[in-house]
């Protein structure tokens, strides 16, 4: 159930100065009632109905979230060149503890169209606007995440005996709302009668009291604890340059260039929380994890042990080995250095042709599929094998004459370089150098042509519009990454988890042909 009540007051105080005030109230009440019935072992084969099963299990849960907000927005507009907007909102959430369930957050934004004062009627500088804004937002947890509950136990009823057990999830009973505070400054500049356009923004967001499911030792009797776990900041630049290179009746050609960066840093974690782990793969022991001071997107794991300026250390058994002496260390970062793209829209009479190139630079990724292939010997990386035991790795070994010194390795492997080596976690697949890859890429995201039959025979057939088009997506890729499309991700886009791939369906290449007719 959603209820919105908005009241707007507008007043023009003079020719140049106008205001509008909006006040509102929003009530949302969401209730989800899940019922599931599960049956197995059919009496009559192929008769698929729940009544035909001999063991049944049913489940019901009801989640309800209520949110009440009141808000107001005051907008001031002076002479179409100075704009100011101030908002304020107070929310009450049912998912927060009663004493913390009310929170207020304001925002303010201002912009100035300076071409109204300077460069007036200039053909060169056709439009210029500067803008700045500040906004706060508050957020609550999900349903039933505070406190600890006792539920019907898994696998019960058991032979007619019912039972309950504590949940292994618990949440802070004094949970506070998560807050974010963002600043943004930017400019929108257009030249030559809007034919050349620049838009630039710099933003910074500070999130405090992040609500997070922290990992706790299972020996506490719980596995996850929802609490306000720390502060972090993110910031980035966004630049867009677009130009109409050619613009006349027969030809138009527009180029659009985008460039964006985004990075972040964990500024504070509570003392009793060593790290926040967003995702993990316990096979190779690779984690998307941050500690205080880390960049967002940091990946942890093990690296090869190296000595003497990064040379591979080879043990007495003749093999390299991962270095577990310091525990998990930073092995990479899943966030890209930048993402940039170039798009083109070209039209000649009724033909149009467009394409979009994208380039993501940097950002490490672990591919689960590749690890399986390494372990099963189906990856080309495991092609090199030596069956005899005399293979000698390049690297350094401990000097037998002086144990504090390292000399070039002469220890032969004791088993050769066979499938056991490629399957070995401590010698091969556990090393981030092997399983974590640079997932940079350049790809032709999209290319397409179309023809618009405007005016040819349309009138006669009473057709307002007739377009034929063909396009292809995701068809060309340049990347150093070994595996499926490096853009693929095990976790969904909204999860905020990066750096893992190979457990989902890879992105598809697709080709489409279209006919569009309008009557």
């Amino acid at each position, binding site marked *: 159930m959603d209820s919105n009540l908005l009241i707007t007051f507008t007043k023009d105080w003079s020719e140049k100065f106008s205001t509008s005030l909006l*006040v509102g109230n929003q009530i949302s009440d969401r209730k989800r009632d899940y019922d599931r019935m599960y049956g197995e072992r059919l009496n009559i084969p192929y008769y698929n109905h729940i009544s035909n099963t001999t063991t049944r299990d049913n489940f019901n849960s009801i989640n309800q979230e*209520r949110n009440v907000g009141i808000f107001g927005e005051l907008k001031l507009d002076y002479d179409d060149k100075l704009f100011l907007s101030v908002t304020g909102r107070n929310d009450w*959430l049912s998912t927060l503890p009663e004493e913390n369930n009310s929170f207020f957050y304001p925002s303010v934004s201002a912009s100035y169209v300076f071409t109204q004062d300077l460069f007036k009627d200039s053909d060169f500088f056709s439009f210029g606007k500067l803008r700045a804004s500040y906004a706060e937002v508050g957020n609550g947890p999900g349903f039933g995440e505070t406190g600890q509950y006792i539920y019907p136990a898994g696998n019960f009823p058991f032979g007619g005996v019912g039972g*309950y057990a504590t949940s292994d999830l618990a949440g802070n009973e004094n949970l506070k709302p998560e807050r974010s505070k963002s600043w943004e400054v930017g400019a929108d500049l257009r030249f030559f009668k809007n034919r050349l356009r620049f838009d630039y923004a710099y933003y910074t967001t500070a999130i405090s009291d992040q609500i997070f499911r922290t990992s706790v030792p299972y020996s506490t009797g719980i596995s996850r604890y929802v609490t306000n776990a720390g502060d972090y900041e993110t910031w980035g630049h966004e630049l867009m340059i677009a130009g109409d290179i050619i613009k006349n009746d027969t030809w138009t050609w527009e180029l659009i260039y985008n460039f964006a960066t985004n990075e972040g840093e964990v500024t504070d974690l509570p003392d009793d929380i060593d790290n926040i782990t967003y995702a993990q793969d316990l096979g190779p*022991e690779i984690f998307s994890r941050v500690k205080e001071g880390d960049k967002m997107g940091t990946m942890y794991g093990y690296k090869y042990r190296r000595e003497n300026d990064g040379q591979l250390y080879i043990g007495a058994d003749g093999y390299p080995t991962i270095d577990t002496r310091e525990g998990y260390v930073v092995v990479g970062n899943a966030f890209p250095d930048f993402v940039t793209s170039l798009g083109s829209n070209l039209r000649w009479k009724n033909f149009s042709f467009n394409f979009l190139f994208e380039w993501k630079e940097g950002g490490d990724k672990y591919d689960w599929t590749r690890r399986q292939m390494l372990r099963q010997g189906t990856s080309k990386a495991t092609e090199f094998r030596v069956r005899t035991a005399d293979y000698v790795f390049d690297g350094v070994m401990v000097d037998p004459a002086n144990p504090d010194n390292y000399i070039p390795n002469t220890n032969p492997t004791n088993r050769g370089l066979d499938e056991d080596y490629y399957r070995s976690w401590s010698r091969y697949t556990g090393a981030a150098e092997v399983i974590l890859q640079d997932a940079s890429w350049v790809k032709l995201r999209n290319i397409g042509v179309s023809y618009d039959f405007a005016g040819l025979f349309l009138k006669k057939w009473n057709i307002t519009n007739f377009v034929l088009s063909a396009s292809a997506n995701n068809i060309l890729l340049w990347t150093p990454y070994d595996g499926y499309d490096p853009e693929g991700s095990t976790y969904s886009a909204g999860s905020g988890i990066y750096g893992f791939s190979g457990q989902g369906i890879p992105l598809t290449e697709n080709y489409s042909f279209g006919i569009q007719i309008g009557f």
Partner: protein
Amino acid sequence: MKKIIKITSLLVAILIGFVACNEDYFDVNTPADSVDVDQLGMKDLMGPVLYNTMIAQYSASTGYSNYSQYIGGYGYSALGRSTFSGAWNSVYLSVLPNVRIIKQKAIDLNATKYEAVAMIVEAANMGLAADTWDAVPYSQAVQPSAYPKPNFDAQETVYNEIFKLLDQAIVKLEGTDDSGYNLGSEDLIYGGNYDKWLRAAYTLKARYQLHLLKRGKATTADILTNLSKGFVSNADNFVMNYPTDKLNPWYQNTILTRNTGNYFEAPCDQLISMMNGKYYPFESGSVTEDPRLPAIFDKTNPADPWRGGLNGGNGESSDGLPLNTYFKDGGYYTSATAPLVMITFAEALFIKAEAHFLAGGGTSTSSGADAAAYDAYKLGIAASMAQFGVSGGAYLADTSVDVGAENLELNHIMKEKYIANILNSETYNDFRRYNFSTDVFKGLQIRLGAEAEDPEFAGQWFKRGDYPVSERNANPDVVAEFEESPVTPVWWAQ
């Protein structure tokens, strides 16, 4: 116009006021299927506690039984180093938090015998934990507010606590309880029979004391005293039978998984060679195989001899031919309603036989024991035969089994215990107590390593579990302090 605005504003104010002031409106954050701890009785928690206790045993045994070469993946694949995380999760997430609530409720209600059962269950879980990982969280475990990063207790400390729990439970069960609260059908082990729980406490105590013999922290006399008050028949066996609407997990991961083309467990050569006359050739001529073999296993061609896979091999048995033996659909351990087993009367008798054997000066290589040791040995075999529902008369009479007290060796006792305890986690403790000795466990060979995950430990027996990654992640400093190589013996085996 002004009037309308006024009225609307008033309505808004009333609505907001109504909603915001009514605090009950926001009191909808409790999951509908959850209950409050005060609503629960002890009986509501006991069923899952016992169930998860047995699941912890099962979970540990899927790994232990590979180390003790009862089973391998497909009958041969060897287990590398392991964290036994399933057992850790069962003990710390499922059992202990709920045992603590039961205990508190029992104290509040003065239900001393109910509390005693909770104590025995807690002791058995901590025994499994300490035996698997050596030092484990106990004194600071399952108190998340007070100890968000529990320190670990040394195995010796945990053992002292186990004995304290068992001793207190024994006192309570031997005393009177007039609280009116009794165990009922939620007791998935004994159906509410406190006398059986009392005998179970004594028998478990003997089992744990046996582990400490090497350390001199217990004597054979202690063990025999406790056993004299322990199990008296197979009716005392600490087992949980599966009801018809659930599937025994061994059934699932031997029979169902094999039928559906998935990874499954099957017996190893070491176990089959103990039972088919290979290590202990039958001498009477009237016995060709251990009668328990066909009660538990099946082979692809009934005319062929029984062959298990060499642990860590490629599917071959010790006679060079491919393995042909699998768990039997409907067998003792692998029917849908088969029991999960903690400890049995037969094991109690083999502990007794071993204690008498050692008390009489016996060693791993000596021969001959007193009548008490020999009687317990033979009674243990008879108890095991009865447990598996087979007739053991001819087997017991065969001179390879009926060796006579004057020829009894430790390996005879341990062979029979090994067979009686198939899939029981205790066997791995026996292996570690005797350091995988081939004097004690005839024919025992280390895994071959054809599929070895980690060549670092090739040729070495795994002697403990690694701490689970969940603990290493969230409690790294404590784990680092207690972590040892998986080939380092636990305290009581050192």
